[in-house]
């Protein structure tokens, strides 16, 4: 018989609740993104946002899935990695629900959840995953019972870089979609520092130089175009290194920045060159949301994973490769 999991996500700017059944159907997936009028994300303000809107987001998710309290068999929550205040608020809500409904509690790794929901959607069995968001830039693949980070940023995440650049030129958070729109009107490419180290990359030098381009009078469109081409080119290179190195035959693009069409084009070109299948996670499942937490919670639960409330402290620095992926064979 199919079981129903309520998944709660709240590691950074977004709070989400999703209802997923163990046969892999996403019954609902509601989220709300904290988007300040100006400036970036302050962890404390984001956590206040989560506690303010959390209950109504969960209620909406349950209504849309047409379930009530007694239908929930499992509560899963994003235990880390993320911003401490946000994680604490999310964990408190999840613990309370687990105790109140008297159902098991499952702690889910946020990065692992991005991969698993992508695998559910694409049917991929063993992909190289490019996980790109505001706080993460990682190339991940499964090897020896773990999801291992083959490559990552050495300084700032790609989404953070785009947002910081956007803020500098007067865009609102999140800036990625506006940068993509501007870039489509560009006429010239201006060279920016390109920094790849093995399977890692670095964006801080490029960011500084991009800000300088704008202050030197380069058009906004050209600057946005140059930023995208350089940043995505670097990402493509490390993804390609990971594919060549692991010899895997699937490439999965996920995370909030997966919504970018130019990035999608470039990475599908990489996959093609190596005869690998490519999938970009669809927008509703690409960003931070509860369905991915619910689905991964189901996988963990089916593999016998349990978490007592007493042991459910948050893990703000939980690395992707610190968890045995007990539900995967091979």
């Amino acid at each position, binding site marked *: 018989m199919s079981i129903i999991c309520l998944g709660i996500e709240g590691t950074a700017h977004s709070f989400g609740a999703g209802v997923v059944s163990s046969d892999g159907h996403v019954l609902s997936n509601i989220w709300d993104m904290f988007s300040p009028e100006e400036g970036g994300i302050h962890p404390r303000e984001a956590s206040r946002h989560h506690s303010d809107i959390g209950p109504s987001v969960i209620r909406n998710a349950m209504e849309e899935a047409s379930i009530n309290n007694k239908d929930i068999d499992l509560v899963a929550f994003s235990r880390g990695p993320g911003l401490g205040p946000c994680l604490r608020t999310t964990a408190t809500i999840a613990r309370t629900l687990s105790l109140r409904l008297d159902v098991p509690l499952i702690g889910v790794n946020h990065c692992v959840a991005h991969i698993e929901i992508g695998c559910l959607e694409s049917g991929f069995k063993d992909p190289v995953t490019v996980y790109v968001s505001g706080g993460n830039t990682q190339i991940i693949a499964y090897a020896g019972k773990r999801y291992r980070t083959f490559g990552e940023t050495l300084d700032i995440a790609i989404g953070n870089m785009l947002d910081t650049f956007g803020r500098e030129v007067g865009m609102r958070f999140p800036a990625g979609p506006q940068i993509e729109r501007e870039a489509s009107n560009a006429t010239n490419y201006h060279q920016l520092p390109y920094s790849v180290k093995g399977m890692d990359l670095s964006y801080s030098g490029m960011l500084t130089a991009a800000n300088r381009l704008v202050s030197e009078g380069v058009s906004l469109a050209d600057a946005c175009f140059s930023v995208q081409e350089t940043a995505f080119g670097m990402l493509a290179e490390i993804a390609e290194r990971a594919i060549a190195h692991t010899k895997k035959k699937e490439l999965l693009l996920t995370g909030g920045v997966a919504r970018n069409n130019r990035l999608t084009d470039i990475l599908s070109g*990489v996959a093609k060159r190596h005869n690998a299948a490519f999938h970009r996670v669809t927008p509703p499942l690409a960003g931070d949301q509860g369905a991915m937490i619910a689905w991964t919670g189901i996988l963990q639960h089916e593999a016998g994973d349990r978490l007592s409330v007493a042991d459910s402290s948050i893990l703000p620095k939980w690395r992707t490769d610190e968890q045995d992926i007990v539900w995967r064979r091979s």
Partner: protein
Amino acid sequence: MEPWNIGAESIIYRLEQWGRIILLKHRPQKPYLLKDIDEFLRTSRTSRECKMLTVARNLGVPTPMVYWIDVHNHSIAMECLQGKQLKQLVAELAADRLQKITREFGKLIGLLHRGGMVHGDPTTSNVIVNPRGNIWLVDFGLAEMNATVEMKGVDLHLMRRAFETTHWDFEAILWSAALDGYRTIHAEETEQVLSRVEEIRERGRYH
């Protein structure tokens, strides 16, 4: 000509010339990249690799000999080494032999660092071992001169991560053997570089 190996940024062909086997490393065009960026990378990496192979050899690090370079066609012709990648050997070598070879790998990276150079991609795929246990470093397309403590730290971080992701069962042995070797060559800076490695590991993630 049939490719012998398709890597991330190059295609390698084997050809016979002057009665010997030669490897031709070609950096092909990548249609999915912006042309300006692609052309810049293919040209700069080809000429950099060629130069760095020689600089490294002058620092005492065995590297394949370069026969010719064709920057216009983004190709380098070099010696075909008779050996296997360390990556393929890790699981099959006896522990003491694996340690000895990895210590040697650490020494070679130490020689580069002492000479102010970083390799840029020091994975076990880029170490060639022959049956007698002699080793070479290859693939210098990401190598850089004027290395700072930060650059050396990144180099060792990359080496350690390659051990972690590809040889997880041997990670501790490999890392400690490599550091043993590194320390014998580059002792004065080892601790400083290592503390930077720890710092680098923690960057780029949520805190």
